[in-house]
C-alpha cells in the first residue's frame, strides 16, 4: 500500500550529457532503469516506493534533447525534454500549431509547466489511484482491476476500450499531438524509429502494463510535427475538477480545415476517456464535406459517444464528452 515517505529509496543516479551515453546506459541496465525527465511523475512513484528502480538516468544534462527547431517542410521538431512552458510560449508553435501551445499551457500549474517536459507529459503513467497505490492490479502485473467493480471509486476512469484495466491516459498534450499527426522519434541501441503519435499510445488490449510502445532500452528523443495541419482551425478544451493543477476529466483537441463554410477535413481526439488518446475517426468521416454549423456539431457530439461503456461513477463523462466534441466543431469555436 502506498505510503508517502520523506525520502526516496536509494538508487544509482546517472547524469549523461549525450544521447549516445544515455542509450549506452539504457542498454546496460535495461529493465532496472528509470528515465527521469522533469521528474513530476517519477518522484510520485519513487517517493511512494511503488517503483524501486536500481538505476535512474537523469536527462536534464542532455542538451541535444532540448529545444524547438523548424523543419524545411514548415513543420517543427521539439526535443523530448523541452519544457511545456517553452512550448506554450514559442512563437512558431503559437502561430502554426496553436493546438499544441494551448494544450501545453493548460497542463497542471505554471510551476509544473516550467519543470515538466513534452516527452514526460506524453510518457507519464496513468493516474488510476488503485494502480498508483501499489496494489497488484492488472496494470501492475496482477490479475484484477480494483477500479472496475460496482463499489469502486471510478469517476475518472474509462468510457472506451477498457480491456480488463479501466485506467485512462491523463495527458493534455497527447491528444493535440495525435490531432496534429505528430511523429515520435524513438532511439535505442539498434537505431532510430519513427512512430506516429496515434500508434505511440497503446491500450490495455495490446499491453496492459504499458501506455506507449516504448520498450526497455528505448529513448524518446524528439516529437516532429509536420506542416500538414499548420494554420488549420484548432480547438482545445480541458475540463477538470479545479481550474489549475489538475488532470483532465475529459479534454478534446481538434484540427479542422474549412473552405467556404464547409468542413473539408477534420481530426478530433479526446483524452481521459480511454487508456490512449481516442481519435474519433467515425466523427471525422461524418463531418467531412458537411457545413460547419450547429447541426453538424450536434451530430458529431452524438456520434462521438456512441459505444461508450460507463462504469459505476463516470457516466457524467458521456454528456461531457458529447458537448466538448460539439463545441470543438462549432464555427465560432474554431474561427
Amino acid at each position: 500500500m502506498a505510503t508517502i515517505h520523506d525520502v526516496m529509496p536509494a538508487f544509482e543516479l546517472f547524469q549523461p550529457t549525450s544521447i549516445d551515453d544515455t542509450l549506452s546506459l539504457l542498454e546496460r541496465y535495461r529493465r532496472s532503469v528509470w528515465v527521469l525527465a522533469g521528474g513530476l511523475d517519477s518522484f510520485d512513484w519513487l517517493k511512494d516506493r511503488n517503483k524501486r528502480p536500481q538505476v535512474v538516468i537523469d536527462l536534464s544534462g542532455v542538451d541535444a534533447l532540448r529545444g524547438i527547431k523548424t523543419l524545411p517542410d514548415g513543420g517543427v521538431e521539439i526535443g523530448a525534454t523541452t519544457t511545456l512552458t517553452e512550448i506554450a510560449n514559442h512563437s512558431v508553435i503559437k502561430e502554426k500549431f496553436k493546438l499544441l501551445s494551448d494544450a501545453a499551457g493548460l497542463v497542471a500549474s505554471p510551476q509544473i509547466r516550467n519543470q515538466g517536459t513534452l516527452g514526460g507529459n506524453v510518457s507519464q503513467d496513468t493516474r488510476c489511484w488503485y494502480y498508483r497505490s501499489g496494489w497488484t492490479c492488472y496494470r501492475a502485473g496482477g490479475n484484477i482491476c480494483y477500479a472496475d467493480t460496482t463499489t469502486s471509486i471510478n469517476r475518472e476512469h474509462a468510457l472506451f476500450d477498457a480491456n480488463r484495466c479501466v485506467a485512462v491516459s491523463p495527458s493534455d498534450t497527447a491528444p493535440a499531438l495525435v490531432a496534429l499527426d505528430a511523429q515520435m522519434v524513438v532511439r535505442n541501441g539498434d537505431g532510430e524509429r519513427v512512430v506516429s503519435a496515434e500508434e505511440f499510445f497503446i491500450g490495455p488490449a495490446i499491453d496492459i502494463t504499458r501506455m506507449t510502445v516504448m520498450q526497455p532500452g528505448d529513448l524518446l528523443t524528439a516529437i516532429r510535427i509536420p506542416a500538414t495541419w499548420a494554420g488549420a482551425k484548432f480547438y482545445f478544451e480541458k475540463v477538470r475538477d479545479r481550474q489549475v493543477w489538475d488532470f483532465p476529466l475529459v479534454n478534446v483537441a481538434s484540427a479542422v480545415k474549412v473552405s467556404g463554410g464547409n468542413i473539408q477535413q477534420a481530426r478530433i481526439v479526446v483524452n481521459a476517456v480511454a487508456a490512449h488518446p481516442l481519435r474519433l475517426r467515425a466523427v471525422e468521416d461524418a463531418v467531412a464535406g458537411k457545413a460547419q454549423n450547429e447541426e453538424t456539431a450536434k451530430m458529431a457530439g452524438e456520434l462521438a459517444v456512441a459505444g461508450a461503456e460507463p462504469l459505476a461513477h463516470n457516466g457524467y463523462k458521456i454528456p461531457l464528452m458529447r458537448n466538448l466534441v460539439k463545441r470543438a466543431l462549432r464555427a465560432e469555436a474554431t474561427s
Partner: protein
Amino acid sequence: MNWLVQTGLNPWNEQILTHAQWNLVYAALAFGVLFMVGHSLYVKFWPVPAGGHTASISPELAARVPERVKRHSLAARAFHWIMAASMLTLLITSFAPILGWKFDWVQWHWMAGIALTISIIYHIIHASFWLDFWSIWLNKEDANEAITRFKRSIMGGQAAPPRKAAKYPWDNKMYHTAIVLSALAVVPTGLFMMVRVRNPLFARNPYLFADSTWGVMYVLHGLSGIGLVGLTMAHIYFAIRPEKLWITKGMVFGDISKQDFLKHHDPARWVVEGATPPKS
C-alpha cells in the same frame, strides 16, 4: 517458490498469488525441443531388437482383417480437429503476447476457450454413448505392455516381445490421460476467469471468490497452460514423424490400411468392424 508462481499485494496488505511464472513458458518450449531431439536420436540410433519390437500375430487372425479398417468416425475426427484448432488458438493467444507478439488477445482467447469447452462436452457424451468408453483409459494390461516394451528396447531379442496394441497403444493412453488432467485444471478455471473480463456470456464479478482462491485459480490455469505447450509440441511432433503418418492420415480420412493395422495392432485385442468371423 518464486520460480513457480508470482505473488502480489492486495488492498488489505495480504500477499496473494497472482499467476504462474511466465519464464516457465521458455522452460516448456525448451523441454518440447529437447524431447523432440532426444526421441529423434533414439529412433535413428537405438538398435531394433532381433525379431522386431512386437510379437507377430497369427496368420489366421490376420486373414480376417478387411482391406481398410475404420479407425475414427466422422464425429470423432470433427471433435479432434475442432479441439486442435481451439487448443492452438488458446496457446497462441495466451503465450505469444508473453513472448513479445503484442495484440488484442483476450477476446480470441475466451472465444477459443468456449469452443474447446463445447467440444470437450460433446466428446464426453459421444465417447460415453457411441464409442467404447474404456478403450482409451490406462489399465493393468497397459502397464504390463509398457514394462514389456521397455525390457524389449533395453535387452533386445533376449526379452519377450510384447503383444501388438489394441485400438489405442499405451503411450496414446498416457497422452490422453495427461491431456485430460490438464483439461480438468485449465477448463473450469478458465470458465471462472471469464467472470473477470467483459464478455457477453457472464456478468462481470471480480469478487466471486476471495483473492486467495482467485490466485490459486490463475496459477492452476497458467501452469496447466504451460504444460499444454510441451504436450502440444510433442503431439504435433509425433503427428508429422514419417513412421506415424499413418495415424495422422487415419485422423484425417477415418480409416487405415490392413497393412498398417497388422503392423501395429493385434486383431485379437481390437476386433474391427467388417472382420470375417472365425470359421467354426
